[in-house]
């Protein structure tokens, strides 16, 4: 007994080492989105191009939908537009949530006309994957979704449950790994 307690330090160290080893191969900044497996939050927001038109949560239901949070100011968003356009052509319903640059909004103000023009031009150049774009005016929907920056994407099932999430751009590899199997599950039904 007396001798066993002398082994406590080395045992504790070895136990900790197991976690150190596991930690080496996982990214500590990869924090799971808290909204996964929860229903998509309620919202009431205008269309980006036709502000008189208003969307609600119900407008997203009925089929598997990819919600993409993006902005023209965001470089990575540009990268994923062409691939997402390809997805649209394959029959995936993609809805954009337009996310203003918070610093710009805070310090110099946003000009909606300018944004609309930028969006039009960018989608014409790189492809338009979106069925429509929701304008997240004060970024409240994004905050409800736990968005930390652009781009981020959420996959919701026909009942509006969030079933997958991606922080950063979606490309072929990410789509096939994290999204395609889930989409197939619902589209097969």
């Amino acid at each position, binding site marked *: 007994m007396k001798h066993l307690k002398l082994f406590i330090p080395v045992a504790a160290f070895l136990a900790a080492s197991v976690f150190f080893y596991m930690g080496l191969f996982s990214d500590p900044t990869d924090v799971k989105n808290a909204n996964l497996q929860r229903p998509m939050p309620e919202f009431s927001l205008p269309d980006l191009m036709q502000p008189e038109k208003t969307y609600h949560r119900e407008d997203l239901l009925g089929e598997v939908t990819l919600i993409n949070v993006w902005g023209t100011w965001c470089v990575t968003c540009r990268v994923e537009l062409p691939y997402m356009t390809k997805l649209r052509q394959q029959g995936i319903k993609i809805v954009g949530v337009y996310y203003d640059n918070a610093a710009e909004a805070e310090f110099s103000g946003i000009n909606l006309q300018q944004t609309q023009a930028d969006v039009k031009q960018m989608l014409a150049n790189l492809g338009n994957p979106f069925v429509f774009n929701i304008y997240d005016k004060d970024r409240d929907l994004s905050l*409800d979704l736990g968005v930390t920056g652009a781009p981020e994407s959420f996959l919701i099932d026909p009942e509006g449950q969030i079933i997958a999430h991606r922080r950063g751009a979606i490309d072929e590899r990410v789509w096939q790994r994290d999204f395609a199997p889930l989409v197939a599950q619902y589209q097969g039904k």
Partner: protein
Amino acid sequence: MKYLILIMLSLVSLTLTAAEQNYPFDDVQKEQDFNQLLQELRCPKCQNQNIADSNALVAIDLKNKTYQLVQEGKSKKEVVDFMVQRYGNFVHYDPPINSLTIWLWLVPILFIVLLAGWIILNSRKPNIAAHSISEQDKQKAAALLAEIEAERKNK
């Protein structure tokens, strides 16, 4: 009441001499809550910064939302719950107590109790000299005792 008027007055004079506060408050308690919340909420996009120190875009939004909620009269706990609901426990620098985090408290407490117990026991041990009496000494002692006994009987 007097106190409140004083605060109001000082606020007025402050705005008169200039300086637009980024997050103005008319309630000292709210201002205190707000400042503490900015320290306790973690910027979810940054390496390791609270939202007060961060300039990240999402930190700006979280600051504004915190301000809005505090102004609406939400308590500190309600604001934290609101953020945790959306960003997970990661967003709050004070972890919730669960089966794992409870050890943050238990391990040091157990350690203190065990070692304090050990040192108390150890300090009560009699002097080692009392234990390590050689056979020879014992015989001598026995002989002495016998002698005393004998003397007493003789009396």
